[in-house]
């Protein structure tokens, strides 16, 4: 019996070795997502009653404050993506096209902030934005302002920190797609009489669209759900999607309503990302190109 088991196991060894990763992903990603979808639709009336399907939790979310929170998060994510794109593109362009020597050093300096705990970096900004911080001291010294600017605990600080923390997510994909770009195409375009601007908009940017798309997803999605930065930099005044999710699950312990809100926000995020892609990248081919 044992021998036969051993033989059978030996034959299926490949399967047994490869399956833990799949089980892990299904158990800790697939199942939890299905669970919150289920929780959001099921109402438990009492311990001995049969649970029934309901839309109560979704209907309870149809109120203006909730809509405002979602809109605020979308706005924040949009600003973070647009600003980080506007910084990341010229930055990566310069690094890829103009830097010939010490490239590894520049790359090293680029990866390091990304590999440093982001909460520590958020903490560093307190020293810069505080009433007695670096910016205010410099401005006061230069005589640009007469009393300190209040730059912490407001929407400005949240936005600035979002751009700061998500900038590397935009830079790295754009950088790698610019690096893969065949530089002779740019030369050809310039030789054939296109102006540098035409070359930029008709050759370089279209050919690096994959990087821009990946960067946009990598910034939009986490920025939409971000809650550490708003709760540290926002002064607790405004709620965002991430803070509301954590409120439902951790403070209010209302997991059904939390589940409903989570599902709703994911759907809205999908719709928003879809809209962005439909508007800016009409040919929706992220999946194929990335593979």
């Amino acid at each position, binding site marked *: 019996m044992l021998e036969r088991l051993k033989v059978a196991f030996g034959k299926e*060894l*490949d399967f047994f*070795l*490869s399956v*833990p*990763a*799949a089980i*892990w*992903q299904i158990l*800790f*990603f697939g*199942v939890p*997502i299905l*669970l*919150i979808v289920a*929780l959001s639709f099921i109402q438990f009336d009492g311990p001995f009653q049969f649970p029934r399907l309901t839309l109560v939790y979704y209907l309870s979310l149809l109120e203006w404050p909730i809509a405002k929170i979602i809109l605020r998060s979308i706005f924040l994510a949009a600003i973070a993506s647009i600003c980080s794109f506007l*910084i990341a593109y*010229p*930055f990566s*362009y*310069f*690094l890829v096209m103009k830097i010939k020597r010490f490239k*590894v050093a520049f*790359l*090293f300096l*680029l990866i*390091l*902030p990304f590999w*440093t*705990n*982001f*909460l*520590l970096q958020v*903490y*560093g900004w307190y*020293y*810069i934005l505080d009433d*007695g911080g*670096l910016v205010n*001291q410099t401005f006061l010294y230069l005589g640009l302002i007469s009393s300190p600017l209040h730059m912490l605990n407001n929407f400005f600080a949240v936005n600035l920190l979002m751009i700061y923390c998500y*900038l590397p*997510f935009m830079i*790295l994909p754009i950088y*790698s797609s610019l690096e893969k770009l065949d530089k002779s195409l740019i030369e050809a375009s310039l030789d054939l009489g296109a102006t*540098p601007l035409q070359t930029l908009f008709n050759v370089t940017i279209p050919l690096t669209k994959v990087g821009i798309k990946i960067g946009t997803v*990598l910034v939009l*999605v986490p920025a*939409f*759900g971000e809650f*550490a930065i708003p*709760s540290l930099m926002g002064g607790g005044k405004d709620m965002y*999607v991430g803070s509301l*999710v954590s409120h439902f*699950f*951790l403070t209010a312990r209302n997991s059904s309503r939390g589940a409903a809100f*989570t599902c709703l*926000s994911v759907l809205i*995020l*999908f719709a928003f*990302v879809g809209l962005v892609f439909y508007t800016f990248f009409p040919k929706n081919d992220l999946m194929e190109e990335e593979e």
Partner: protein
Amino acid sequence: MKLFSAIWLPLITLLTYLFLYLPILVLILFSFNEADLTSGFSAFSLKWYSELFSSTEIWIAIQNSLIVAGFTVFLSLTMGTFFVLYSSKPMMKWINILNYGEIVISDVVIAGALLSLFAFFTVPLGLVTLIAGHTLIGLGYAIPIIKTSFDEIDKRLIEASMDLGATKGQTFRKVVIPLMTPALVASGLLVFIISLDDFTISFFCAGTSAQTLSLYVFTTIKSGLSPVINAVSTLMIAFSSLLVLIFCSLQTKTRFF
């Protein structure tokens, strides 16, 4: 346009580096500051470092973070490698779709869903649940890197090894693994740093007993500034620099994100 590329591009690059490094430099500078204020540098001092080394809470947090990161790296790499080497094509495809799902769904949603799972089955929260969550994220990063490196291996080497009489296990140990070592080290480093950096999953899945470094920093910032955090940051930045140096020297074709 000429003016733009000659002056503005370098300027933007310079300013971006400044923007990225300003908080880091300030953190390091103020870790050597005598006073505990944000306003100005008063005198050089190492007192925050001595305070750091005498504090116990922070070392417990660091220890927890390292335990979680260590287990996460071990689990992600072993499961990821076996998965890439031995899984069937359809399974690969399905898991790939799940991987994409993890990218397009915010961390906070995954964290909330994981918490519901643990709460539903009344699993006590702690280091184990944290490792489970981090390994999920880690696998998402490790599998694509390991797969790319496995695809680049000349498969004739594996055939030759098998033809020359090596068993499957010997081929795995002596041919496949040595060829993939750079990619394995790179993905190990990446997963390690992601686990160490993670805040969202930890915030949801750690419960009250297990405090990681990220959680410690978060609660400290919420209650006010403390230059001990600057001292920790300086040490952490030195540590990450070392890891990034190793990562850059590996020269693997990996995504950094």
